[in-house]
């Protein structure tokens, strides 16, 4: 029997009295692309960070490729676990003290995946080319790049070590529509050509249609609706309908 690549069961997390996740159930099949939609502050990022172990859930179980995340013990296990992931952060989260190529090759320059410097640089330049950047940006600092270019560098860093699972945290936020389209297409292409399992958080519906195989809507700390992207438009769920149409009228309170 094949198990899902990522599995969340009744995951709960509260920050003080603020219950962000109230029992999230989610499955992502191997090689598929799931997009989580939901308003700002509904805990989409928290869910991703729970899977990565950046935040420890209060209750529930998370399994990655059948292995329980909570039972990882020791640095070695965690390193091996994290080596399977790549993540593109919302603000790209590039290390601003390092030139672009060292950001991209970060994982290849140290730790268990370390390679010779020249080789790491070559891989970094190749990955930069893959996301549409020329080799002359390699020696620049992240602060010298535009927002769209920083996102591309972040994407190159996420895929540099050929991860099996890639997370995208609001990949198009803060970009103009054309750059958003470019990033969406890149994400789709890369995920397909690498055969990676992808999980994306967004509230950009164009992004959803471009990237997703499956869609899950997070609202009120639970998954409201989940299904293939083709069925999203006739979900019959008033929350999903309101979110897709961007209407102020509906079950979701507009003032949060």
């Amino acid at each position, binding site marked *: 029997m094949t198990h899902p690549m990522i599995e969340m069961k009744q995951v709960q997390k509260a920050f003080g009295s603020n219950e962000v996740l109230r029992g999230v159930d989610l499955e992502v099949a191997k090689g598929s692309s799931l997009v989580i939609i939901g308003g700002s502050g509904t805990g989409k990022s928290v869910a991703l*960070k729970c899977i*990565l*172990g*950046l935040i420890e859930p209060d209750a529930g179980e998370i399994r990655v490729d059948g292995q329980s995340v909570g039972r990882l013990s020791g*640095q070695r296990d*965690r*390193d091996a676990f*994290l*080596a399977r*992931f*790549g*993540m593109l*952060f*919302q*603000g790209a*989260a*590039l*290390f*601003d*003290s390092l030139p672009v190529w060292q950001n991209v090759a*970060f*994982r290849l320059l*140290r*730790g*268990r*995946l370390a390679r010779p410097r020249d080789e790491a640089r070559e891989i970094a330049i190749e990955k930069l080319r893959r996301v549409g950047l020329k080799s002359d940006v390699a020696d620049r600092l992240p602060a010298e790049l535009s927002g769209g270019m920083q996102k591309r560098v972040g994407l190159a*860093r996420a895929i540099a070590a050929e991860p099996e699972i890639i997370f995208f945290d609001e990949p198009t936020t803060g970009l103009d529509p054309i750059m958003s389209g470019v990033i969406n297409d890149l994400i789709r292409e890369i995920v397909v050509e690498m055969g990676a399992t992808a999980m994306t958080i967004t509230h950009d519906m164009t992004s959803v249609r471009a990237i997703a195989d499956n869609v899950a809507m997070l609202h009120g700390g639970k998954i409201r609706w989940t299904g293939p992207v083709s069925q999203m438009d006739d979900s019959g769920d008033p929350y999903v309908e309101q979110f897709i149409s961007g209407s102020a009228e509906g079950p979701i309170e507009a003032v949060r």
Partner: protein
Amino acid sequence: MTPITALGLIGRTSLGRLAALGRISRFAASAFSHMIRPPYYPRELAVALLNIGWLSLPVVALTAVFTGGALALQIYAGGARFNAEAVVPQIVAIGMVRELGPVLVGLMIAARVTSSIAAEIATMKVTEQIDALVTLSTNPMKYLVAPRVLAALLTVPVLVGIGDIIGILGGYTVATKTLDFNAAAYLKNTVDFLELRDIISSLAKGAVFGTIAAVMGCYYGMQSGRGAQGVGRATKGSVEAAAVMILAANFVLTGVFFSL
């Protein structure tokens, strides 16, 4: 406010402070344990040595030279009240090496290094760079904290030693140029008067103060709240805490070295 609520307030504040001290101690212990376990990040250490040690030299030198000069003037003026002007070299040496050298260098490091470490790490935290490090299988305690603490532990004693020497030279310059002291006699008095214990205590204080400065910068940076305000608070808190802890540690260390 009734006496009971006042007591409650005192109790809660004390407990809060002690809990914070406990968290900081655990943080420091973790930083030291990461220093001795691989993987090591020599490049990070080199950058930290440069930033904390080498680039602090100008401010340390200026602080020391002016303090030594002022000290010589004060001791001369004060000593003149009971015909003891001749003790200038001895008191400048003792004052600089035992107290002013380590304390002033420690405070300058708190101002220069603690603030910059806290602001840098807090900004990294706010912009998710710390999370990014973790997802790239790199432990922030090892990659960011351990090299900075180790660099401060190694370089601040050296800075204190240099500060001591420059401070004494500041006193020497003032004494020989304006107060008519004999240059050779001044230096001989200084060297004869200082004991090994004075120098060891000075360098040991430097090591402790350097560690405090770096640990507080890293701790407050890692605990930073969100946004620009979070970074500002972390920076302010780190410098305050480092300065107060350096002065408190100085009192304890002086007690340990000179009254036991």
